[in-house]
């Protein structure tokens, strides 16, 4: 029993660490579609972590949340984002306010900050997922940083989604999942938010297009 719980805790830690690693990859990645792929990968790790926690603790409602994550964050949202990118026809490299090495360095600092802030409250947590709360907080901070550091609408959206992943990991790790009604609501909100943002980027594009065409006819007459 002792050994199996020890291994379980190690496995959960490993999965959470993989989530954090993909965060760094997203910060280092310049191509937008690759960022979306990395986000899908991160969500897959999140599903793995949640399923692992569900299996080890026997809390079956976490399986539901894991299933929904798989459906929404691994399949639907990346597809929507890919469509948006295709339509926007973004071929250029991403515009970044901070260059990659500096960004990575800052993210390293953010991880230390996260561990420092959560230190006093960690001993309260369950043994199995104790370190994951700090990692989740780090992921939230890195997502936040990504939103500030990038200028394109879609990459800001990816930053937002990374934050959401961190929050979900936090909820799973710290409390073995939120009450089901809250969790369903959160999924619903995230999905709608991404759809709205998708429509929005299209409209932004349309607004610019229509401005251009009216300008052209004006010159002819």
């Amino acid at each position: 029993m002792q050994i199996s719980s020890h291994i379980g805790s190690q496995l959960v830690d490993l999965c959470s660490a993989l989530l954090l690693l993909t965060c760094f990859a997203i910060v280092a990645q310049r191509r937008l579609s690759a960022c979306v792929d990395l986000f899908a990968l991160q969500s897959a790790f999140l599903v793995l972590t949640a399923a692992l926690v569900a299996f080890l603790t026997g809390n079956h409602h976490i399986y539901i949340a894991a299933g929904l994550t798989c459906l929404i964050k691994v399949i639907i949202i990346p597809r929507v984002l890919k469509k948006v990118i295709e339509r926007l026809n973004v071929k250029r490299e991403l515009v970044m306010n901070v260059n990659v090495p500096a960004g990575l360095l800052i993210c390293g600092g953010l991880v230390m900050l996260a561990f420092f802030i959560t230190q006093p409250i960690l001993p309260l947590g369950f043994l199995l997922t104790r370190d994951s709360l700090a990692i989740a907080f780090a992921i939230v901070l890195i997502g936040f940083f990504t939103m500030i550091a990038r200028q394109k609408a879609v990459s800001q959206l990816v930053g937002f989604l990374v934050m959401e992943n961190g929050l979900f990991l936090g909820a799973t790790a710290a409390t073995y999942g939120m009450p089901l009604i809250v969790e369903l609501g959160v999924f619903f909100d995230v999905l709608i938010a991404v759809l709205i943002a998708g429509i929005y980027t299209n409209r932004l594009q349309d607004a610019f297009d229509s401005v251009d065409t009216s300008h052209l006819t004006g010159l002819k007459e």
Partner: protein
Amino acid sequence: MAMIEVVVLLIAPLLAGGLSLIIHRSALLHAINLTSMSLLVASEIMITRTVLTDGPFTTLGQLVYLDALSAFILFIIGAVGLACSLYMRSYMDEQVARGVIAPGRLNMFFFLFHMFLLAMVIATVANSVGVQWVAIEATTLTTTFLIAFWRRRQSLEAGWKYLILCSVGISLALFGVVLTYYSSLHVLGDVSEALNVSQLLPVADRLNPHVLKLAFIFILVGYGTKVGLVPMHSWLPDAYTEAPAPVAAMLAGVLEIVAVYAILRMRMIVDHAVSPAFTGGLLTLLGFASFVTAAFFILIQRNYKRLFAYSSIEHMGIAMIGFGVGGPLGTFGGLLHLLNHAFAKSMAFFAAGNIHRRFHTVEIGQVHGLAIAQPWTAMALMIAGLALSALPPFASFVSEMQIVSALSAEGFPGQRLTNSSGMVTLALSDQFSRLGLTGLFLLCAVLAFSGLLYRITGMVWGTPPEGIVRGETWTLGHLPIIVLAAALVGFSFFLPQSLRQLLEQATQILLLH
């Protein structure tokens, strides 16, 4: 208890929203809207009665929790919502007639409007802090398209900024909710009710103070973004300028207040476990940051919608100072100030909508002679402006006086706890800081007052520019302006019995430690 009223409260906007999707006739859409709003107000009045006689209660299987505070917020939602609905009757029809909004999109506007209302009602009555979070995020999602309803480039930009900033802010609040759950699990066990206010309040003193402190900071920053507190306010002036007038009135008059309510709810729980000086200090700090920043920005505004937007930030800051300083006076003043601000600001945006329709500009410098061109609107603008600068015949003078006297009596929250080195220096520094803070408060109030009135008088007097139609025909949209103006003056002399009781009980709830 009062189950039917609560069901009506939730079903009316839902049904109205659903109907709006399939109906396309403008008259019918307005009729549905007004019916649903009236039902909402009626059930709100019934709920207030129940709360006043029987105290807080839960219903619908623990999903709904209602007390005097939430009944008070519902009252604001109902009153401002009804005023907006009446105003929309003439405003939206004219927008359609002028071709600003395609007739086919009118039902979409009403659908989003009803969903927005529904989300705010849920955020107010929800028992679970988690459900409240979901509802507040839903308000962001429903209003982004309302803000960008004109689909101009600027409005799309404002809508995008709003969506991104508020979603991120709200995500931080979710982390706060997770942390609250984290602390309550140890006391209440792994039950789905562990986030319910009705369950948390009785055991709140046993929750872990470290976790709750962290949770409160996250929730304050998160919902503070929705309130528009400095430094999380940068989306607000853009969104208020680009949104159609009724939407801006709803954002300024209701949504901000629902977000304040969410912060106060959380504070009630945290204050049981941590000294109230902690939450009070944070609220006062953010309140002063918002008040001071907004007072200076009011001075330099050249766009009247932005002027009102910054005035919103200012007044939310004042209310926050009231809640932060606390005590019966500060808390009562803060609540009354929320009500006054909701009424005055929605009125200001109604007037702004009328001006924009006539002058087709948002530049203050291009609007003159409003008293000749639109006498009713000019009067509304003057009354709203005077109320927003908190001059004596208006109720906002009363609430601001209460807040500033609470501030001068209590000083910055928690000072007595942090300064424990020697009694004499303590008394001295305490005196000085109280004096300084009160002075700062009054200085900013004067700045905001002069800035606001200078701009408004410039718009009202003078002769209208060439080509502007003179005279104003009476429409249904003028009714809410008159009623709101009467309420703003009336409340300073005489608060209706039930409203006073509601405010007093809400104050008691917030003070109960």
